[in-house]
């Protein structure tokens, strides 16, 4: 495709933009538009049935870059990309990129997740950690596994309670699930969904954040978070669209720590409350990850409770 000055970027989201995952894209694109770099359009909460049509409509309307989360609709999204070879597609996907114009990315933030796991493992007094998720999909599973690995590094005897509420959108339910975990003795919670940190806050246990930083809302509760920043990914893609050099490749690496696509959130209110020797181990791992000497495994299988 020819170079463009100010590309039109269209996003198709299968969930509302408040959802943590897509909010990462939405924020970056809104900012890029504010800077005048792009023109941004989006459609949110698009059902499975409509997803393909909306993609086509954007492509048809001349969007230069189409992005969004296409997980459940891989085949359809690729079909659309094939039909519009002049348009760049950068879709959240667990699959492979596809020439010439279908690029993929995903929330590869297992590295900071591992680090938050270490903190959780070190902070849990009784070695019981709880995790509440929406559905066991790869995007969730890999972070949970990395988190568990990290926790086990610090405390090999730690046990995990795992629970899925079967919805992306039910904070009251997630909160209730977290309460149930706290009732059974869990003292650190992995907050994959909204609602979990609220339960932790009310009961005075600790929580670990995921994807976004919520410490501002829960200053006494959220110790650490694995943050995802889509800016490196999207900026790279936008730059290529502008230059007319966009091709179907895997943007997954841009979510890694070394590209600043993900990071361990600053301790903030917990500065000084996490034991120094624990933090030293964490920093050491962080450095090892950054210099490539430590690799966090990606494990997409469904995590299971190890608590009894």
């Amino acid at each position, binding site marked *: 495709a020819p170079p463009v000055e100010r590309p039109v970027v269209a996003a198709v989201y299968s969930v509302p933009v408040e959802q943590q995952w897509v909010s990462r894209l939405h924020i970056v694109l809104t900012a890029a538009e504010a800077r005048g770099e792009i023109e941004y359009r989006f459609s949110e909460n698009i059902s499975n049935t409509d997803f393909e049509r909306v993609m086509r409509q954007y492509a048809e309307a001349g969007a230069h870059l189409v992005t969004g989360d296409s997980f459940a609709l891989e085949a359809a999204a690729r079909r659309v990309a094939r039909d519009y070879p002049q348009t760049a597609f950068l879709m959240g996907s667990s699959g492979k990129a596809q020439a010439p114009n279908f690029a993929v990315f995903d929330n590869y933030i297992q590295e900071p997740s591992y680090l938050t796991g270490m903190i959780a493992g070190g902070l849990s007094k009784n070695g019981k950690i709880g995790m509440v998720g929406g559905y066991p999909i790869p995007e969730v599973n890999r972070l949970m596994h990395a988190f568990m690995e990290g926790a086990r590094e610090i405390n090999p005897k730690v046990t995990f309670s795992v629970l*899925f509420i079967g*919805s992306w959108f039910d904070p009251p339910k997630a909160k209730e699930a977290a309460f149930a975990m706290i009732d059974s003795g869990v003292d650190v919670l992995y907050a994959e969904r909204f609602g979990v940190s609220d339960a932790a806050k009310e009961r005075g246990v600790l929580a670990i954040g995921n994807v976004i930083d919520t410490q501002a809302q829960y200053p006494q509760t959220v110790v650490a978070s694995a943050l995802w920043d889509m800016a490196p990914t999207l900026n790279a893609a936008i730059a290529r669209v502008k230059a007319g050099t966009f091709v179907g490749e895997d943007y997954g690496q841009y979510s890694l720590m070394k590209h600043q696509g993900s990071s361990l959130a600053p301790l903030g209110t917990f500065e000084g409350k996490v034991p120094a020797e624990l933090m030293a181990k964490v920093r050491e791992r962080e450095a090892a990850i950054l210099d490539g000497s430590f690799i966090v495994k990606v494990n997409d299988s469904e995590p299971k409770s190890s608590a009894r």
Partner: protein
Amino acid sequence: MEWLDLLGQNAFWVSLLRLATPLILGTLGVLLCERAGVLNLGIEGIMVAGAFVGWLSVYAGAPLPVGVLAAALAGAAFGALHGFLTVPLALSQHVSGLGVTMLATSLSYFSYRVLLPGQTTPPTITPFAEMRWLEGLPLIGPVLAGQTILTLMALLAVPLLVLFFKYSPLGLAIRLVGESPAAAEGQGLSVVKLRIGAIMAGSALMGVAGSFLTLAAFNAFFFNMVSGRGWICVALVVFASWRPGKALLGALIFAFFDALQLRLQQGAVQLPGLSGLPYQLYLMLPYLLSILALMLMSRRAAYPQALMKPYRKGER
């Protein structure tokens, strides 16, 4: 933990009651409509509207009780629409109800987006506090103390509704329009007024049920957060054979299994043969057991005879 220990655990009952509250309120709402002879499938959307309007009012600065009132009014407004379509116009109660669900849901979402365009994390409010002052009550004190005032309201609404249907002239009149609108008309009662009134009152309860989610169980409004709770209420009314007491029981049973599955799934409670299953089976539990309970209860119950039958004055 052993299964029996769970029943002795206050926290379990606190959780159960919290899960049950929106179901109790919603079920009573549907019950009121259906006792007057009108099915109200608008509940799922009316709960969304209640959750949204209640939350929005508080977010805009209103005190919490005013938020609940606003939710009730929003519910009543959609109830009035449903009532107008199904009673004087006698249109299909199914379509009108599903239409109201769509309308209430989409209007709420649309308004949310228009009013709060730039949000990426949902803004929060300070929800109702727990009623710690009830701690001292014998037996139920610790369980009630973990609830908010809305749960207390829901619980009190049950006996009130029982008494209402049993003893008050208005309750009797509402039952009559649900059984035989022709008879009601013959007794000089206005079928239209009674039915619309009952639907509006019932829908107001549904609105409050929705507001429980944003003003008590959680502190922010989310898209899709009602998550099918409304449909469950529709089912619970049948389960309850249209009786408020049994509606409470039904909601509690459903919530019981829901609270139980949350504990089984994470392995906090062990039941023989019920550990380590796919998580979906745990989520299925409340639905399956509700149907089972329905099968076991002898329920060729007398349902309101005029339910879902449109009535147009002066026609056969």
